[in-house]
């Protein structure tokens, strides 16, 4: 009986081992779940980091814009103070001009008082062309021909163009038609349409507002046509005009809204180009609205020829002094930065489009363009704006057509979509079925790869082989060593089978994770394609509006936008 081996302790050891293996199994399962949880956490963290990065970039951009806006606001004050310091005394002379004329109309002020005031201004504002012009004006009122001639001569020496226009307007105000025509002729003779001073806008204002009647009106209309004919004979003029107008229209392109196609913007690789094309197409509406609003409504016409002339005189003396030009130009750029909420690039684009306003002399066609598009910068009236647009309509249409063609060429023909690990392309969202099938196929392949990648680890094999080898080696010792060897082999085998059994669970987990990702991607794909279809629809509608702009411009003609004042109609009759 002593040969009988008592295996009860072996059984109990094996039972304990089984129990321990169950514990290990449960722990490994828990670890596996934790690993999946960590993986999900990592994905979540990555998404949050991406969001944070995007928010940070947006914050930096906004902060930069805010600072630019604040800087522009402060600088404007400085520039205005500088203008006030350097040219503030010109203001008194300017205000005195219409003051003298109105006082003379009312016959409330003694001629000597007017004379004294103008003499004082002559002394306090050296080198300013308007001071001797006022001395001449007061001498004329006082009937002092010699002083008037000396005043006019000095004023002409200081600034011939402005003096000629100034006295043309004064003569129109006094209804001296012959003198008006002579002053205007003198002004026209000095002009070169290739390099004309900006105050020509006052002449345009006079024409468009019906201030110049009869012979002067005819002379102005003829000279404008003559200048434009001369310009059109220049090589490259038409190309320049197209580009000039294209630049003016291009800055009317609206910016994309925050709510425009958010899913498409997030998942289309070429989203910036898609949004650019959309905004360009939306410009047609902006341009159409701009011209429609310009030609809608009544014009506010000054009640009398005196008031109309005073308004033009104010504009002539206030808006066109070349010494102030660098400061006015700086002030304008800063004001644009403020208007664009600190977006320096957008402000610069607008500033460049109107750059010719800030030059002392420029091409007459450029003056016409800027009178139409930036009237407030030149002091031009709405009537002038209408006249300038209608006179420029051929160039505007050509520029509009060029821009529309350029934008049509730049509309991306396809949207490149990237959703998680899948990518595909769509023109207008109509290939949804094909893309959904492709997405399914992509994830099927991914699932197959992931599932087949789940296999026994080398550790399981090592444990099995090492357990058998070491167990066998121990068993060669005989006696209780056999028992220990068997236990070791049983443990190694049990561990191996447990790992083998766990493979199915791991495969299921991988499959489920990827199925979930597929479902999410399929939902995103559906949303992106729906937005892409809407996008194409909107672009087509906005693009078609380009024809409305052309139709509107074709309906304009410049002669109908030259005002005829009631008194002129009477005189013609």
């Amino acid at each position, binding site marked *: 009986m002593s040969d009988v081996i008592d295996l009860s302790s072996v059984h109990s050891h094996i039972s304990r081992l089984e129990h321990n293996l169950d514990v290990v199994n449960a722990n490994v399962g828990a670890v596996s779940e934790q690993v999946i949880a960590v993986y999900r956490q990592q994905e979540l963290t990555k998404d949050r980091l991406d969001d944070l990065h995007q928010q940070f970039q947006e914050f930096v951009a906004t902060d930069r814009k805010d600072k630019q806006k604040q800087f522009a606001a402060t600088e404007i004050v400085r520039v205005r103070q500088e203008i006030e310091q350097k040219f503030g005394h010109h203001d008194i002379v300017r205000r005195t001009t219409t003051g003298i004329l109105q006082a003379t109309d009312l016959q409330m002020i003694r001629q000597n008082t007017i004379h004294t005031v103008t003499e004082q201004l002559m002394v306090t504002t050296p080198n300013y062309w308007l001071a001797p012009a006022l001395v001449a004006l007061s001498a004329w009122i006082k009937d002092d021909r010699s002083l008037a001639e000396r005043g006019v001569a000095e004023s002409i020496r200081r600034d011939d163009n402005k003096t000629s226009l100034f006295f043309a307007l004064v003569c129109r105000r006094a209804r001296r038609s012959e003198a008006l025509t002579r002053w205007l002729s003198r002004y026209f003779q000095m002009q070169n349409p290739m390099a004309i001073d900006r105050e020509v806008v006052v002449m345009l204002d006079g024409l468009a507002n019906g201030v110049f009647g009869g012979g002067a009106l005819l002379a102005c209309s003829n000279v404008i046509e003559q200048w434009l004919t001369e310009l059109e004979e220049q090589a490259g003029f038409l190309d320049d005009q197209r580009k000039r107008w294209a630049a003016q229209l291009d800055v009317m392109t609206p910016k994309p809204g925050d709510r425009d196609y958010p899913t498409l913007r997030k998942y289309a690789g070429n989203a910036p180009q898609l949004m650019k094309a959309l905004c360009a197409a939306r410009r047609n509406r902006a341009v159409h609205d701009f011209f429609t609003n310009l030609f809608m409504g009544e014009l506010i016409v000054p009640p009398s020829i005196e008031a109309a002339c005073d308004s033009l005189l104010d504009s002539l003396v206030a808006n066109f002094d070349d010494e102030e030009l660098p400061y006015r130009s700086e002030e304008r750029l800063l004001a644009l930065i403020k208007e664009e909420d600190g977006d320096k690039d957008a402000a610069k684009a607008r500033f460049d489009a109107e750059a010719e306003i800030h030059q002392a002399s420029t091409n007459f066609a450029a003056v016409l363009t800027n009178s139409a598009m930036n009237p407030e910068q030149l002091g031009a009236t709405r009537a002038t704006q209408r006249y300038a647009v209608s006179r420029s309509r051929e160039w505007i249409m050509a520029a509009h*057509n*060029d821009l529309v063609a*350029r934008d049509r060429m730049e509309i991306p*023909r396809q949207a490149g979509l990237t959703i998680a690990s899948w990518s595909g392309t769509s023109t207008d969202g109509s290939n949804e079925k094909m893309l959904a099938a492709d997405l399914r196929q992509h994830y099927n392949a991914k699932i197959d790869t992931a599932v087949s990648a789940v296999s026994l680890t080398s550790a399981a094999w090592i444990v099995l082989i090492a357990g058998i080898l070491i167990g066998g080696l121990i068993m060669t010792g005989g006696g209780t060593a056999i028992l220990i060897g068997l236990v070791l082999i049983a443990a190694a085998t049990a561990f191996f089978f447990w790992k083998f059994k766990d493979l199915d669970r791991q495969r299921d987990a991988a499959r489920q994770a990827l199925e979930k990702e597929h479902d999410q991607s399929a939902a995103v794909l559906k949303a992106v394609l729906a937005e892409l279809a809407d996008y194409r629809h909107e672009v087509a509608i906005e693009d078609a509006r380009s024809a409305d702009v052309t139709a509107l411009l074709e309906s304009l003609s410049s002669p109908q936008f030259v005002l005829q004042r009631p008194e002129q109609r009477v005189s013609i009759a």
Partner: protein
Amino acid sequence: MQRLDAGTHQQDAAALQALLDAIAAEFPELGVDERPLGVVSRCFLGTPYEVHVCDLAGGIIEHFQHGRSMPPLFERARSIAAHGAYAFIEIYVSTIRAVAADGAVSVLNA
């Protein structure tokens, strides 16, 4: 240009020459180097054809399917030709000119 869809010009050399002469007659005052290199327009042969090209220098007419690339100077006019708003697109070395059915010409710098 619309007549190119009939396909006559690919088989009939005389018809092609007549077309090229007609195009040359449109530019009497221009030197050979100032004339367009070719003309691209939308192809109405139907799917899979998208645009066709009349290469004035080589005297070749070719219809292009979706995805098949065109010669380098012509490719840039592909999308605008396919847009359908223009009768045809003239290709020059430094510019392309999109001509609408009403004769309006849009100039695009390359």
